[in-house]
């Protein structure tokens, strides 16, 4: 009996196996390998094994031995032959800007002749080889496991002595961007709550027929693609767009006073709020449906004004829905990509757009991965704080 039950359980579990495999292959494996790139970069180490082995014994202060120069020169030469030098130079350049041109220039000079002194030849090709800092950067670039991407992602760097320092203000990019992303996400969450709460209340307290119709209207946007909805906002909000035209036509704005509502932060806010609104309304509605309308009546029969009844009786009972909706909208917006990319212009970009940039344009996957990990950790942190404050368990999504 117990055996047959166990068999049935195993068979039932086996039915989910295709999904488990699918998720593993398409989600966990790529995600894991991507995240690994944030701290694991073996490419330089694999390209310059002998030089790096020699640099390991180097004191880091004086100029390296002649042998080190020769080894590096030979390794450059063989890499150039295999046409791999450009990629390696780019990687090293990410740690020490200027290194790419130094390396490529040196390799060109060293292409044919067998110099007497490799040191002199290389310093002649580029003075940088005479400085200990260049070699230290090379040694750092050769580390298989590195936190350098995280330092970059947090606007930190190492000084010549290897200490971690913050970047000068004008070179800080990612922390301000992360901060902006958090602020924008919070603003969108609050706007969605303010706009969605009355709608959810209306749906939850209408007759079944009307409630169904309203719910359908809330879900209607999901019938069109996200891309269409986002580009529609461009049509509506652009300078010669519907909204501006309307405002000019009824005389609120002069023709030269058209408001820039798209390709900036305003556009990102408006479009994302509209797109994420259903994710606020649905959890709110799910909770409000379970709150008896009798309670508001009871409150007023006990002498409370609508305000008192709402604040003391109704609102506290809908908190699980407020929590669920807010968390959902906040987490969705913190990682939102496509809408800010299309309507955000230069000022309306969020952290995920920067990640995409490093994935697709600069091809600095290590940095993209580090930014991704930081984003993930931030969401995890908020989730944790939220759990402490509100309690995830009491939350209801549907």
């Amino acid at each position, binding site marked *: 009996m117990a055996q047959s039950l166990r068999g049935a359980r195993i068979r039932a579990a086996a039915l989910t196996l295709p999904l488990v495999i699918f998720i593993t292959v398409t989600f966990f494996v790529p995600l894991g390998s991507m995240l690994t790139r944030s701290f694991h970069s073996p490419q330089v180490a694999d390209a310059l094994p002998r030089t790096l082995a020699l640099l390991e014994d180097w004191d880091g202060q004086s100029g390296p031995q002649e042998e080190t120069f020769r080894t590096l020169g030979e390794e450059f030469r063989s890499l150039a032959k295999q046409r791999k030098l450009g990629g390696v130079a780019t990687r090293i350049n990410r740690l020490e800007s200027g290194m790419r041109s130094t390396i490529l220039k040196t390799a060109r000079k060293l292409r044919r002749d067998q110099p007497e002194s490799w040191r002199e030849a290389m310093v002649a090709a580029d003075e940088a080889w005479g400085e200990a800092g260049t070699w230290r950067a090379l040694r750092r670039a050769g580390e298989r496991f590195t936190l350098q991407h995280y330092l970059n992602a947090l606007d930190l760097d190492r000084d010549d002595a290897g200490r971690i320092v913050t970047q000068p203000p004008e070179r800080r990019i990612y922390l301000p961007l992360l901060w902006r992303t958090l602020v924008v996400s919070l603003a969108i969450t609050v706007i969605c709550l303010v706009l969605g709460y009355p709608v959810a209340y209306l749906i939850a307290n209408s007759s079944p027929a009307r409630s169904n119709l309203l719910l359908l209207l809330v879900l209607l946007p999901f019938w069109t693609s996200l891309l269409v909805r986002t580009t529609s906002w461009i049509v509506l909000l652009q300078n010669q767009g519907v909204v501006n035209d309307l405002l000019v036509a009824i005389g609120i704005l002069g023709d030269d006073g058209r408001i820039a509502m798209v390709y900036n932060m305003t556009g990102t806010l408006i479009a994302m709020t509209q797109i994420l609104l259903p994710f606020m309304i649905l959890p709110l509605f799910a909770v409000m449906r379970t709150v*008896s309308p*009798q*309670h508001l*009546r*009871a*409150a*007023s*029969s*006990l*002498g*409370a*004004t609508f305000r*008192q009844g709402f604040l*003391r*009786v109704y609102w*506290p*009972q809908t908190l699980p829905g407020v929590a669920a909706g807010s968390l959902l909208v906040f987490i969705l917006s913190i990682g939102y990509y496509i809408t800010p990319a299309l309507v955000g212009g230069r000022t309306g970009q969020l952290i995920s757009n920067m990640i995409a940039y490093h994935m697709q344009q600069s091809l600095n996957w290590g940095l993209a991965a580090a930014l991704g990990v930081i984003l993930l950790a931030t969401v995890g942190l908020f989730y944790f704080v939220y759990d402490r404050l509100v309690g995830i368990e009491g939350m209801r999504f549907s």
Partner: protein
Amino acid sequence: MTSTVKKDEAHVVFRGVDKTYDGKTMVVRDLDLHVERGEFFTLLGPSGSGKTTCLMMLAGFEASTSGEITIDGRPVHNLPPRKRGIGMVFQNYALFPNMTVGQNLSFPLEVRGIPASDRAERVRRTLAMVRLEGMENRRPGELSGGQQQRVAIARALVFEPSLVLMDEPLGALDRRLREELQFEIRNIQQELGLTVVYVTHDQQEAMAMSTRVAVFHRGQVQQIATPEVLYEEPEREFVARFIGDNNILRGHVLSADEGQCIVDTPGGEVKAFPVYRCRPGEKVALAIRPERVGLAQPRTYSNEFEVDLRDILFVGDHLRMRVKVCGNSNFIIKLPNIAGHGAVLKGDRVRIGWGIMDCRALPDEE
């Protein structure tokens, strides 16, 4: 809103009140009610008869379509629920689950601006009244159904209203608990001298608790009377059928005098007491209580019939028999379980009978 409080006027008055939601169907029609101070007044009727709508109009959650409702002689049309000063007990308690029992009771005091020092004492006193001492810190969800009901009653009383409305407050409880709470509600009402307007569809509950009962049917009051009068002297067929058990016989009036009429039924002539001035040829319904029918020696009763005993059931304190008489094949007779009845068996031919005063001729409503 210029009229002043008239002390001699009834506590609650409905005058010609109509209510319709769609303009066509009348939920309540031409309703007149007077509820005296200190009365336990019950609105009784099947679901959809308009009784709850009346309560909601009195509480201020529904507006009447026409007519006037006054409390203490003051029209309340423009008064929102919170200003009517009525305690209300809701059908499913409507306790606030996000508050403790103490906070639930404290809520009406807080919104009235009563200082915190007085609040705790009044909450304690009111909880003691419903025998829930020391339950202040429990959540409604942790209480049994009966306890939740007591909290709901306490919450409706804690701000000392003189008028309390109850909407099927015991509907969700099992029978024993219901009967226990019936006594308690009645005791509290009398102790505090409250006016209670109570809604129920349970006629036994209405009979047990009320000073007077208004029987509702299809939005209209059929009869307003004390429980005894409703039971003994129903004036409408609906009331006769709804309150307790009644056998109904149908027939045409042959002749009618003051205090007696003769009615022609499919099984013969029946002498009955007419409750209204009926005329020969008119259709009437005769209502006869099962316990007022007896097994008879000849010429004991004014109405006597020889019938076959179709069924006989032993129900403990009484015997329940079913016969066919005067066109009613489901005529019930209740005989107390005392010596002498054990002799009759199913299929026996027996003689049954009833008196004129136990056979009321009512307007036929079929």
